[in-house]
């Protein structure tokens, strides 16, 4: 070892040490990158391993077809459908608000707004994205629902309409920003062609730009659905935490996420069926959002190369 060292020049030795360090650094960086992969595996592993005991006690058939979810009652029923119904209803209300508003905002920003308006509006939308969801939940329960009760006095304190509307407002910036990106990516030449034919801005936007950007706009909607399904605090605060198999937005109902929160707020007995049931609910949620995210990404990527 000592003999070998004396054979190489100090400069070369320095080089070897340096290259070795470079190698170590690269490995450390690579490991950090790998964390992202590990987290995904971790999620899948934990969700599956913790819910296996649950699915030993409850059949898949009961889980997916029973319309009663009463894990805390004497007669326990584990049908996920009421939670799914609540989740979909609230997301539906949110989309009814967010899709028109988001799409119009996107068209306006991409085709109509002056540079100055754009520079002012985009930061505001970004700020809206930054508002924590627990604050939105406060508004749903203590501001929007009381307002709705003035119009519709029979509305209960906990309902799916109020949180749905608030969630819709929360989602508008997401739809607007993804859809606007898609519309801005449409080449200027296509707009110029349309203007040259005598079309107005609105005609160009609706008949040329929007069809050309369909994939991106649809992707925006899909990602918005995924966000709505995974949203937790708004619904846990304002929609009630009682599972209720209904699609009527004036009723109160629990979502998948609200159920997980309600169980976590109580005393969790590690290994009990209540503990396992939130992982079963979680895996349902994860599968739903993951497939929507993949579908959204796929839609967005599939048609982008066309121009």
């Amino acid at each position: 070892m000592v003999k070998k060292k004396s054979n190489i020049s100090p400069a070369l030795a320095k080089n070897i040490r340096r290259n070795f360090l470079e190698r170590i650094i690269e490995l450390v960086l690579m490991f950090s990158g790998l964390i992202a992969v590990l987290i995904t595996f971790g999620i899948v592993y934990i969700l599956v391993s913790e819910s296996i005991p649950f699915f030993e006690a409850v059949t898949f058939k009961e889980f997916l077809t029973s319309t009663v979810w009463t894990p805390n009652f004497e007669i326990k029923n584990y049908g996920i459908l009421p939670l799914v119904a609540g989740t979909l209803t609230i997301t539906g209300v949110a989309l009814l608000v967010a899709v028109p508003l988001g799409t119009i905002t996107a068209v306006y920003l991409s085709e109509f707004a002056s540079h100055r308006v754009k520079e002012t509006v985009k930061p505001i939308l970004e700020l809206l994205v930054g508002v924590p969801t627990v604050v939105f939940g406060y508004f749903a329960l203590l501001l929007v629902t009381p307002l709705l009760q003035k119009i519709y006095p029979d509305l209960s304190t906990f309902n799916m309409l109020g949180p749905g509307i608030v969630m819709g407002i929360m989602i508008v910036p997401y739809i607007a920003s993804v859809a606007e990106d898609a519309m801005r990516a449409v080449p200027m030449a296509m707009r110029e062609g349309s203007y040259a034919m005598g079309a107005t801005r609105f005609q160009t936007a609706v008949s040329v730009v929007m069809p050309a950007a369909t994939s991106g706009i649809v992707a925006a909607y899909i990602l918005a659905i995924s966000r709505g399904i995974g949203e937790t605090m708004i619904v846990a605060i304002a929609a009630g935490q009682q599972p209720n198999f209904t699609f009527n937005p004036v009723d109160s109902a629990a979502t998948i996420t609200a159920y997980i929160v309600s169980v976590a707020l109580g005393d969790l007995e590690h290994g009990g069926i209540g503990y396992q049931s939130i992982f079963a609910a979680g895996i349902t949620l994860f599968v739903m959002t993951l497939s929507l995210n993949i579908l959204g990404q796929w839609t967005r990527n599939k048609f982008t190369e066309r121009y």
Partner: protein
Amino acid sequence: MAISNKKTDKDLNVIRALIKKHKKNDQIFAGIGFFIIISLAITLLVLFLDLVIDGYPKMNLDFFSNFPSRKPEGAGILSAWVGSALVLVVTFFVAVPMGVAAGIYLEEYAKKGWFADLIEINVANLAGVPSIIYGLLALGLFVYEFGLGTSVLTAGLTLSLLMLPIVIVSTREAIRAIPVHIREAAFAVGATKWQVTLHHVLQYAMGGVLTGIIIGMARAIGETAPVITIGALTFIAFLPPSPVNDVAPFINFSWLEAGFTVLPIQMFNWISRPEHAFHINAAATGAVIIVLTLFMNGLAIKLRYNIRKKIKW
């Protein structure tokens, strides 16, 4: 001739009417678009003012120095803001080095291939995973498998998982904007890859990285669901042990294992009470959270704007 002239006039009138109608449509749509955007801005303002007005009676120093209590008048957010601060310290020290390192790896080191693709797909998907799923991961992994319990450390790690994709994405974007000739110049004078990255690439990317860190931290402050899922308590009337003390070695880490609550959970707890007096506390807490997050997000937006204006390669 006369007849044909009349016909052209009529045609022209039809066309003019049509143009007028279409121009009107343009204006109507622009009006609607502008109205919606103004409404969104006003909504944001109303929400903010509503919190401040509702919570105004509690806006005093006592609110920050009192523990939560059964009596709404004397209740404060001391344990909540201390808890939030400690959790964020953990989140910062975990998510920032890892996120920046992962971003550097993906942009500067990774060769195109299945391995880089695998990481990239995972980062993209993690950004879309609902936050409560991270809570379940943390509950199963950190709380029970690793036996960390419901502690400041667990919460910090959980939130760092959420922040990681944000830091990675912003680091990558910042690095990608740096032209190749900056690196080539450094390589030409004999710098190694790491020296190029550390002394040049990272320096120029710092603004963008910082933007991502601020946005990620702002998100971590307001994040509620995952912290509830790991079993954080909603009522805490004590503080974790101080990280700094007067006995050598002056810092200790026992606060990492302490129970805690955070600002949004305290707010959630007060919203859930039926008494109106607690809702005032909730509004005041909400105002504190929203001032923090709006300030941080605003700072990040301003920072990004400055970078875009200042740097011209």
